[in-house]
């Protein structure tokens, strides 16, 4: 069990409604307080009760931002755990379960753990999960008190009895755990003992929400759709404090049109959705392009087509985002890969939308949105946001021609001028035109900004040393964490990595970054066709020699990427 020295992974499995997420949310703060680096993610079915969901918590010697396939400790509440997870178990995995519920695959790795009994003793079946927390703490050698305080705080609102039952349930589990023999008590990574107050723990959704607030977002209108809804509820919870107007639309078409109406009137507005909802926003995207009105659109990707797998992850909507909306207009697309990037690119998205008067897409996915990790407070940047609007004079023309194609943006009710926007082709004043010459000039005006946008594009993050490497592995969005860790494990200086957090426009010297055709390019993405690989090829002219793709609804594990890259690197050297 040498691996456990700096990396210990625990998985908690149970049916929807059994409170598996509560296990994680109780354990995470306690584990952090014990000085461990933590990463956590979850996978769940599209149902409210039943089925089989699981969460993973990794305890690591240094900060990590991805999951491992390998399970060192499994705590299972349903008979479906074995079938769903058995490939991820190894010979030393500790399995905590009740034989009766676990089913036929009971073996020497399993530890009969009467959670049901503890729960009943504490006050009812709902407490099983809290008993599980007790067991885990004991096994990990963490004092129960660290958790009981937390339980007390958490459940205070529900009355003393509930608090007591929770604590009792935890105690029963804990007492069971500390009596287990030493070989059932894993070695954990050395706690980092870093100053708690220097770092924050959150999921991707929160990071995007924080970014939006930092950017001054004050309007969000959206229709619920997993996994995009989280950003809506994040902002709704903080709406009062930050003066954000939150409106749940009747459908996604209304959402983006309301967003544009608000933006026209001076709001910093955004919408959040997933691929299917974004389909319905296409015409709105096109409108944003035509009326040169800023809007930020967050797409939390999940597997399509159609309803697909509503609670799973995918990176299948890049092509759609690139080409969304009929006709031609400028846009930008960001795809953060870490919490810091999420906070930063969301700010950048607002700033870009405002300054360039265009729609900007932020592409995330279920994996990134739900995964919890930590960031250092001092890494969180607030970008300066230029005021997007000007006071109008009497002769104000919303689409006056300028060299850059950008006209200072006025809003109605601010200044002596009037502000007209029109979805038809229009003249400088924003009135319908049928002049071909005006059309030509307005098309040029709207597209000219693509040049400056491209000059400002974010450079990809470099992993390892691409100059000396023979193979460059490229990824985008949520795959940054897994590529970083896989390259670290691979520890082969022939292989380097690039992570793109801006997908459109791409930086000018993308071809150079890819070695101008002198290196082998591998692209990793969570879709079936290699959408980013196509874009890279199209934009840089560089051939992509290998695509590592996965569109099952699951994210890549570190092991998977290591295996694929090893194979390729090995092929390279022979």
């Amino acid at each position, binding site marked *: 069990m040498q691996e456990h020295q700096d990396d210990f992974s625990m998985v908690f499995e149970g049916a929807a409604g059994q409170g598996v997420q509560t296990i994680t949310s109780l354990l995470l703060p306690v584990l952090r307080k014990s000085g461990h680096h933590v990463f956590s993610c979850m996978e769940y079915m599209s149902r409210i009760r039943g089925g089989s969901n699981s969460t993973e918590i990794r305890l690591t010697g240094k900060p990590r931002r991805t999951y491992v396939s390998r399970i060192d400790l499994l705590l299972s509440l349903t008979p479906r755990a074995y079938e769903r997870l058995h490939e991820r178990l190894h010979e030393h995995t500790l399995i905590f379960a009740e034989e009766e519920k676990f089913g036929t695959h009971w073996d020497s790795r399993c530890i009969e753990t009467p959670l049901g009994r503890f729960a009943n003793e504490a006050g009812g079946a709902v407490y099983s999960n809290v008993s599980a927390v007790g067991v885990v703490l004991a096994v990990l050698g963490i004092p129960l008190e660290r958790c009981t305080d937390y339980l007390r705080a958490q459940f205070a609102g529900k009355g003393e009895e509930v608090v007591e039952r929770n604590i009792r349930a935890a105690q029963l589990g804990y007492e069971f755990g500390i009596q287990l023999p030493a070989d059932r008590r894993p070695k954990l990574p050395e706690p980092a003992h870093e100053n*708690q107050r220097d770092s*924050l*723990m*959150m999921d991707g959704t*929160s990071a995007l929400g*924080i970014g939006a*607030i*930092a950017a*001054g977002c*004050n*309007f969000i*209108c959206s229709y619920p759709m997993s996994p995009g809804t989280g950003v809506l509820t994040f902002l709704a919870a*903080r709406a009062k*404090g*930050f*003066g954000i*107007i939150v*409106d749940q*639309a*009747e*459908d996604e*078409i*209304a*959402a983006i*049109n*309301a*967003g*544009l*109406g*608000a*933006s*026209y*009137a*001076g*709001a*910093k*507005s955004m919408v959040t959705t997933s691929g299917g909802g974004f389909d319905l926003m296409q*015409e*709105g995207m096109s*409108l944003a392009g035509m009326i040169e009105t800023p809007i930020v659109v967050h797409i939390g990707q999940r597997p399509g087509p159609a309803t697909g797998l509503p609670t799973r992850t995918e990176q299948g909507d890049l092509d759609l985002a690139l080409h969304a909306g009929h006709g031609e207009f400028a846009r930008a697309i960001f795809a953060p890969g870490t919490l810091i990037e999420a906070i930063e690119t969301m700010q950048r998205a607002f700033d870009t939308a405002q300054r360039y008067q265009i729609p900007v897409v932020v592409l995330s996915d279920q994996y990134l949105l739900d995964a919890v990790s930590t960031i250092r*407070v001092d890494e*969180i940047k607030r970008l300066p*946001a230029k005021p997007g609007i000007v006071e109008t004079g*009497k002769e104000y023309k919303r689409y006056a021609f300028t060299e850059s194609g950008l006209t200072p943006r006025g*809003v*109605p*009710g*601010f*200044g*002596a*001028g*009037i*502000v*007209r*926007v*029109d*979805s*038809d082709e229009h003249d400088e004043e924003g*009135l*319908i035109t049928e002049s071909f010459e005006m059309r030509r000039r307005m098309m040029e005006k709207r597209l000219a900004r693509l040049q400056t946008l491209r000059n400002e594009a974010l450079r990809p993050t470099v992993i390892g040393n691409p100059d000396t490497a023979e193979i460059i592995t490229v990824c985008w969005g949520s795959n940054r964490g897994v590529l970083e860790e896989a390259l670290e494990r691979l520890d082969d200086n022939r292989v380097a990595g690039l992570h793109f957090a801006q997908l459109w426009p791409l930086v000018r010297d993308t071809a150079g970054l890819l070695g101008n055709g002198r290196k082998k390019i591998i692209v990793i993405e969570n879709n079936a066709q290699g959408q980013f690989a196509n874009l890279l090829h199209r934009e840089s002219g560089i051939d992509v020699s290998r695509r590592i793709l996965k569109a099952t609804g699951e994210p890549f594990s570190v092991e998977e990427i290591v295996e694929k890259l090893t194979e390729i690197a090995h092929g390279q050297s022979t």
Partner: protein
Amino acid sequence: MDSPLEPFVMPSDTDVAWCPGCGNHMVLKAVRGALDELKIEPENLVMVSGIGQAAKAPQYLKVNMFNGLHGRALPAALGIRLANRNLTVVVESGDGDLYGEGGNHFLHAIRRNFDITIIAHDNMIYGLTKGQASPTSQRCMKTPVQVGGVNLEPFNPLAVALSLDAPFVARAFAGNIEQTRSIIMEAIRFKGCAIVDVFQPCVVFNKMNTWQWFREHTCELPEKHDPSDRLMAMQQAFRSDKFPLGIFYRNENRETYEDLAGIGASPLFRQTPVSDEAFSAMLETFL
């Protein structure tokens, strides 16, 4: 702005794309009359429309304009009102735009009851796309698509609005500019979602519902009509012998969405950046 007396007037060389004889001209006149009389400042008025012949109306007024997508005027109007409740927002669009493509927004705008005025130019046809049936087309009208005649029940905007307790529901007729103007004035003055369906003959494509037809098929609301009685209003809205004109229903008791949602008086464009303190305080919650 050009002259304090005629603040909404466009330059005289403005090319109005409507056909001669079309009811749209009269509606525009009525709207301008109402705006003039209300002494609204053009800078604080936004006209919102979708796409269609009717939806061109805001192009012919010197005023802030959001001429959005076909069917999508209402959500845009919502966004505008929420971002700046000091603006007077008037939506002017066609029957196809508001009740066809935009039908869902019509329902939910009424539910929200935000403070706008909806003026529907109801010509019972799709004008701009050259004469297909609209939601309000009467049965049996033949068109190049409805070759056997329309066989759907006409959409009843007033009844639908009443069914959702829209607080101001009225019908007007372009042939009666004075009444139309006065109803529109009332509607704009009204705090909440005010709906005015205006019968507007399309002289080119609608050969069934002509000026003459509208004159013959409209009447005043009965004298005893009580606009505070929703069921009575519904009864009038159900009529199809003649279509009554006037204010069917008026309910001063519904609070507006802006008030219920606590939208402040200061428009969003005046908002200052989030302070470092507030930002840090939020971050603290993730410790």
